[in-house]
């Protein structure tokens, strides 16, 4: 198995894009930002599904994959719900009940 160099270019571009995007985020929202990026990084579940679900997966791989999917799902579900819960609370002066 060889490593494809184009992946390095993708990483480089995404990292620069990330810096530019995050710099624009208001400090007001740094906590929800962190929990959102956390939820997004639960995308590792994609890797976990591949490990656990493959045709020739060993029982060991299935166990590891199972735990990994569970852990990622906790982050995924919890991360989105709590980010939204936080953001719902941020209101301006006029639109308070």
């Amino acid at each position: 198995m060889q490593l494809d160099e184009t992946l390095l270019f993708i990483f480089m571009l995404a990292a620069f894009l990330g810096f530019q995007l995050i710099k624009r985020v208001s400090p007001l929202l740094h906590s929800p930002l962190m929990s959102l990026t956390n939820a997004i990084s639960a995308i590792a579940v994609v890797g976990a599904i591949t490990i656990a679900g493959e045709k020739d997966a060993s029982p060991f791989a299935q166990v590891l994959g199972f735990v990994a999917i569970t852990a990622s799902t906790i982050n995924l579900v919890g991360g989105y719900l709590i980010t939204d819960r936080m953001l719902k609370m941020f209101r301006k002066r006029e639109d308070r009940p």
Partner: protein
Amino acid sequence: MTDHLVQLSYLAAAALFILSLLWMSHPSTARRGVRAAEIGMLLAIVGTLVRHEIVNYEIIALAFLAGSAIGVPLAYLMPMTAIPQRTALSHAFGALATGLIGTAEYFRLTGMDVAPSPLVMSALMFEMFLGFLTCTASIMAFGKLQEIMPTRPMIFPLQRALNVSIFIATIAAAIALVVLPAGPVLFGVFVGLALVFGVLLVVPIGGADMPTVIALLNAYAGLAASAMGFVLNNKLLIITGALDGSSGFILAVIMCRAMNRSFANVLFGGFGQLQTSAAGAAEDRTVRSLAPDETAMTLENAQSVVIIPGYGMAVAQAQHKIHDLYQQLTQRQALVRFAIHPVAGRMPGHMNVLLAEANIPYDALVEMEDINPEMPMTDIALIVGANDVVNPAARDDPKSAIAGMPIIEADKARSVMVVKRSMGKGFSGIENELYFQDKTHMLFGDAKDYVGSVVKELASTAA
């Protein structure tokens, strides 16, 4: 054909994640950002599930159920004051998943007829080192934030030497595995060392440095996920990990700057240990204190008030009483604003979330740089549970342990009020000159109770 569809779903997911971070920049679009990220995630998962190599759907479904059964209650029952702990815990879960996927991938690669290339092995080792160390480090951070463990830095002799040698041993094991991948025993040693290193990394770090540490762990978790993308040849993972990683690093840099310290100093400094001896002599100095009814009277006549919250407000759960105070004062036509120091609290943006929870509009929350020029025109600076971030020594005394740290210049206000439990010192252990100024009044008591009585007093005079 399905392979193309899978790649398309990943492409769309990556675009949606980028949009979601773009929309996070402002509160008015932020919730749209969460929606975008949710749709992206759904696309990516469905895309992965339809791949023809995937057959064990029972396991996957079961794991999804288990994860949701834990994740949903965790998200709804978690009080807002516990957000830093939850964040640490979710870094631990994410990093654990990354580490375990790496482990499975290691055994798959070494079980094949063709040896994996050194580059793939390097990416895998990088992934697993960061994954496992972030996992235990985040659990330690959780323990400190939840106060299961002492929040003071724990320092012991030869600590640095031990940390460095464990780090070198881990890297050596990783290099050996890159050169000769087949070595299950060495692999076990490597994983063990990475786990231990994570614990040791957080042991010497104290509570007030947690914002930086959490941000840094966020970055590590992201980089580990990105490295996993290199191993699994998955571009979506690489992009997402890079976005997550750069977010963590930017936040960590912001936190460090707000304390005028370097990464190295936060990670290896053992701050808050040394100064306790120096202050003893000054214990008997007098301070002025005020009772709640006197405080209410003074506040009643103020035109402009700046409230400076700190971690103490979170501990006392005083944010709702602060909201009532905010309302009482705004009804009297006073201009009330909140000055937020970047490192106030235990994670980036901690104070903003608590005040938003208490229904305080976010346009009343002002950043440090924007409020400081207005402090001299402010009638009352009311400090609730903050200490080091308003200590003028950081600005005036080059010998102070916090010298050079940017502060909210409460001492420039016409008068200062400090809600405080006792004369105890802040996290850094440094005496705060602010408390002994002529224009400063100490409001001794629990922040929630004290502010509560002030509000009661104000409400009765209003009627």
